């Protein structure tokens, strides 16, 4: 790949630049002491001048090249194809690109397509050559400039360090860009969705059957996009999960922090955390293969009809997954309660369990509640367990023995294997994603707030 060759060239050139800069700085003076900075800084200065602008150019070139190429190819297309609506034109260009790179093409190969493909190939190789040439030239130019400006008074260290700090700062902004990217991409597609389906129907509709008609007169052509059944299913499954995870996790944490001998704790805590490290797809397999048939069989034995995709199985297994999350968060808060409170309580004659229930638990409560809220947000966003063990069809019910579907399940089923991006069906997934992002965000913010606001302050 030519990008790798460019990168390797840059590497070699910068090594040479470093040596040259260092050598020039040393040659200016009799002894390194007389320089403003250590000699190596002059070398780094040369590298920075060469590599930084060139890297910026390379990155923007890589990002812009496809867009410019598309424009150029479209300009060369016959009138009737260039005038197509954007989505169809996009498909055509996609096919031309596939043909140019020797992949499978989804339409009949005709003359226009071959011509477009040839143009892609020609322009592409031209662009690659121009890219490599201009990047290397820019590097050399920057290095030469820096090399010529080296003198004994140049404050190389200050400049190089400032540049380094800037690079580090750039690295830290990536988190902001990711958040902006998530919000923008979800919003953008969700707005397109809300143009097709009104917001009120999405938020308050009681029916979810995401189909879009290929033809207007098709049977079942009317899709329904009401998110309430999905939310109800999500909360049902999460509720079951929390009913498993909170008591088990909390009491385990109390045992490990208050009762257990240090040696028991040293073994039990990491073993419990293994549960947190197991990939969720494994839990999903466990739920679908072992737990769901077990519940079904047990239900049959006592005369209940349990769906093989029951909310109980998915939620129960999700609860197992969340146990270590609850227990390690609670463990931390319980241990943070100062020893003096315990000793005062024992001194008044309280038993250990009375101390825990009446002194320690109230003191740790805000932290525990915050931890539980974080766990709820995890349960709501959990995907693989419900994809593999919960149902696909929407079902507005509170009965844990029936199959329900969740927001994450619908996102996955709507987007797997579908490549068309202008139907309400696929866009709905982004609207659901936006909702999911928003719910978990609110939960996290509230959790942090609870912890900060109601935390007892001990010296």
């Amino acid at each position, binding site marked *: 790949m030519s990008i790798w060759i460019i990168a390797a060239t840059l590497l070699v050139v910068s090594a040479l630049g470093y040596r040259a800069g260092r050598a020039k700085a040393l040659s200016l003076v009799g002894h390194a002491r007389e320089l403003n900075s250590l000699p190596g800084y002059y070398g780094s200065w040369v590298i920075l001048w060469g590599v930084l602008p060139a890297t910026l150019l390379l990155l923007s070139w890589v990002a812009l090249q496809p867009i410019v190429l598309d424009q150029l190819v479209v300009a060369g297309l016959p009138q009737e194809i260039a005038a197509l609506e954007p989505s169809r034109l996009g498909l055509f260009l996609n096919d031309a690109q596939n043909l140019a790179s020797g992949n499978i093409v989804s339409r009949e190969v005709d003359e226009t397509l071959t011509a477009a493909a040839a143009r892609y190939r020609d322009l592409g190789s031209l662009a690659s050559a121009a890219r490599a040439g201009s990047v290397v030239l820019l590097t050399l130019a920057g290095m030469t400039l820096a090399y010529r400006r080296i003198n004994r008074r140049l404050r190389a260290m200050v400049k190089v360090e400032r540049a380094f700090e800037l690079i580090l700062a750039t690295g*830290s902004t*990536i988190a*902001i860009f*990711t958040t902006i990217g998530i919000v923008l991409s979800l919003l953008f597609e969700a707005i397109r969705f809300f143009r097709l389906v009104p917001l009120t129907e999405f938020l308050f509709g009681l029916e979810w059957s995401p189909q879009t008609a290929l033809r207007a007169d098709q049977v079942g052509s009317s899709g329904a996009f009401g998110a309430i059944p999905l939310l109800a299913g999500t909360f049902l499954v999460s509720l079951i999960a929390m009913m498993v995870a909170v008591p088990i996790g909390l009491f385990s944490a109390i045992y490990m922090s208050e009762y257990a001998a240090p040696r028991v704790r040293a073994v*039990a805590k990491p073993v419990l955390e293994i549960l947190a490290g197991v990939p969720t797809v494994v839990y999903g*397999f466990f739920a679908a293969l072992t737990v769901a048939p077990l519940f079904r069989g047990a239900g049959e034995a006592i005369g209940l009809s349990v769906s093989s995709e029951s909310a109980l199985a998915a939620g129960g297994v999700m609860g197992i997954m969340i146990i270590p999350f609850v*227990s390690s968060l609670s463990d931390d808060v319980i241990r943070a309660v100062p020893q003096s409170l315990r000793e005062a309580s024992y001194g008044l004659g309280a038993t250990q369990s009375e101390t825990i229930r009446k002194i320690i638990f109230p003191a740790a409560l805000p932290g525990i509640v915050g931890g539980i809220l974080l766990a709820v947000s995890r349960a709501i966003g959990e995907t693989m367990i419900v994809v593999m063990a919960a149902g696909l069809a929407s079902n507005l019910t509170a009965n844990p023995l029936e199959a329900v579907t969740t927001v994450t399940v619908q996102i996955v089923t709507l987007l797997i294997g579908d490549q068309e991006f202008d139907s309400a069906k696929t866009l709905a997934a982004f609207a659901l994603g936006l909702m999911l992002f928003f719910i978990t965000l609110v939960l996290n913010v509230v959790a942090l707030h609870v912890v900060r606001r109601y935390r007892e302050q001990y010296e």
Partner: protein
Amino acid sequence: MASGRNPNLTTQAVAKSLRRRYRAERRFKAVCIGALGLALTFLAVLFLSIGLEAYTAFWQHWIALDMTYDAELLDPTGTRNPEELARGNYNLVVRGALQELFPEVEGRSDRRALASLVSSGAGYRLQERVVEDPSLVGTSERVWVLADDDIDMLLKGHISRDVPEGARRVSDQQIAWIDHLGEEGRVESRFNARFFRSGDSREPELAGIWGAAVGSAYTLLVTLLLSFPLGVSAALYLEEFAPRNRWTDLIEVNINNLAAVPSIVFGLLGLAVFLNFLHLPRSAPLVGGLVLSLMTLPRIIIPARAALQAVPPSIREAAYGLGASPMQVVFHHVLPLALPGILTGTIIGMGQALGETAPLLMIGMVAFIVDIPSTLTDPATVLPVQIYLWADSPERAFVEKTSAAILCLLGFLILMNLAAVVLRQRTEKKW
């Protein structure tokens, strides 16, 4: 005197209430122990149910057949040209060998039932042998070929012989044939090396995890190369250089929030930005790595910051006192001391990335891919997605394959976590 009797009464009352309180104490402790025991039981059941299902996948049954490489059939032109030989119909050779063993079988459907005793990959095995050594044409030899997955399940006991014929996938006749072959010593159980060497397949007996493992390795490589330098530089900036102001507060809030965003949302981001906007290839480890690195970044930054915080200020002050510049202080002293902690966090973050499935489903890494990927842009799948795909397959034989793949994935994860633990213990410093 009344006052003489009252303490006695009080003592009695206290003694009575003490009994009750001690009972409550024992109850409470029992509940706590029970909760921990239940959690550990769940863990044990999870591992046992997968392990018990998985271990049979590492062995597979083979059947020995006497193959006759008929020159008429395989090389009608007589040139022994490899291309010509590769085109021959080797399935007929396999069928012929079976026919020879059971000459009494007549009729199309019976013959098809007989042919389905062995894997449909048997023909390819013969083809490979003959193309490699054309002198085999015209001779005959005994070749071990894989049994079909249903037969394999029968021999492993996963398909019960006791249920009525209509309710199982193997007919009574096929059972009789395979038992006969077994009596002749033509059936053998061997270590399933193919499982570790080959890519995915529609035929359970031919499917392996190597393709998914390579895909996982590529994806993790991209993730590591992107998220480690970015994560460390972000942590260094925030801990060592950044002024305390609204901007850095905003960055911090963002990092903490991203750590709690559901992973599937990152998949949606990848789909919208990397695939639909930047037109990167679908199903590619490159895109998977990009998505996973965005997800892993906060999980690397947070422990890295903790590790940097743990380096005592005296180290920095001593370095400054000796005339080091800010960068020299950080890169010569603070970073090396914090590196074990940073690496531990990175390994744990990589472990989470290795087990991640949902975001990769969004960017098309869920396709059925037979070939082993050889570059970062080849279509590929990863181990957890392979597990998901197999778990969805209806064939009974895929259940043990899925469990075995899970064991391999868990093995990798345990290795990574062990490495993190060892690293932490070896290099942990108390200041």
